[in-house]
């Protein structure tokens, strides 16, 4: 039912990201599909694979994958799925029959006019994340060598 080897889990996650990119393309949003491939398949998956290879000391004896409270977790997840699914299906969204393709020029214009502030905030957040990640993942001994 579940994958015990964490590398296999990461590969399955990459397959899931690729499938989602296909869905974005089907939904008429090729720019989001391209970003999904670039950011998730290209960057985050590789980052996670690197983290796994840095931290896993061989796959000699794989421990049990789940906590003891796995049934509680399953119950909570089923509750979430039930509530959100019920809300999503029973609501009348007023959806059109056909999909509307994303207009690339409109997105580009909106990013630098109406959405300029969120764009700047995200760029600042990314800068802070990069600096924070370097600070956190640095080895302590490199610190001493620098001093």
């Amino acid at each position, binding site marked *: 039912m579940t994958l015990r080897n964490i590398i296999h889990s990461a590969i399955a996650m990459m397959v899931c990201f690729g499938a989602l990119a296909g869905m974005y393309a089907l939904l008429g949003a090729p720019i*989001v599909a391209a970003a999904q491939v670039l950011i998730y398949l290209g960057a985050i998956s590789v980052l996670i694979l690197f983290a796994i290879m840095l931290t896993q000391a061989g796959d000699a004896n794989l421990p049990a994958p789940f906590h003891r409270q796995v049934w509680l*977790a399953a119950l909570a*997840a089923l509750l979430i799925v039930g509530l959100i699914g019920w809300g999503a299906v029973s609501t009348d*969204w007023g959806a*059109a029959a056909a*999909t509307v393709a994303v207009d690339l020029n409109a997105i580009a214009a909106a990013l630098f006019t109406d959405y300029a502030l969120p764009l700047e905030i995200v760029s600042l957040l990314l800068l802070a994340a990069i600096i924070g990640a370097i600070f956190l993942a640095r080895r302590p001994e490199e610190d001493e060598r620098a001093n």
Partner: protein
Amino acid sequence: MGLASYLIVSTLLFGIGAFGFLARRNAILMLISIELMLNSVNLSLVAFNAYIPEAQNAGALFALLVMAVAAAEATVGLALVIAIIRTRQTAEVDAYSDLKE
């Protein structure tokens, strides 16, 4: 293939992510589960954007912004996990019990 089917896929993906986050014992797999939940929200945003013309590309725009935030979150989260694993020598979250009574 309507809006509802995409929303159901998104809901199931979110549920799988929530279950993985709550039930898995490995810290890196918990981060993977968070990524799954963020992806499910992105899917619903893009689906709403595609099927509701009044959205005027806002869904796709916010999906792109969410991706950037998710990248930042993954970077800091993995750096934290690597730092913790380096000091505790294990990725099992059950072993991180220093603050327990």
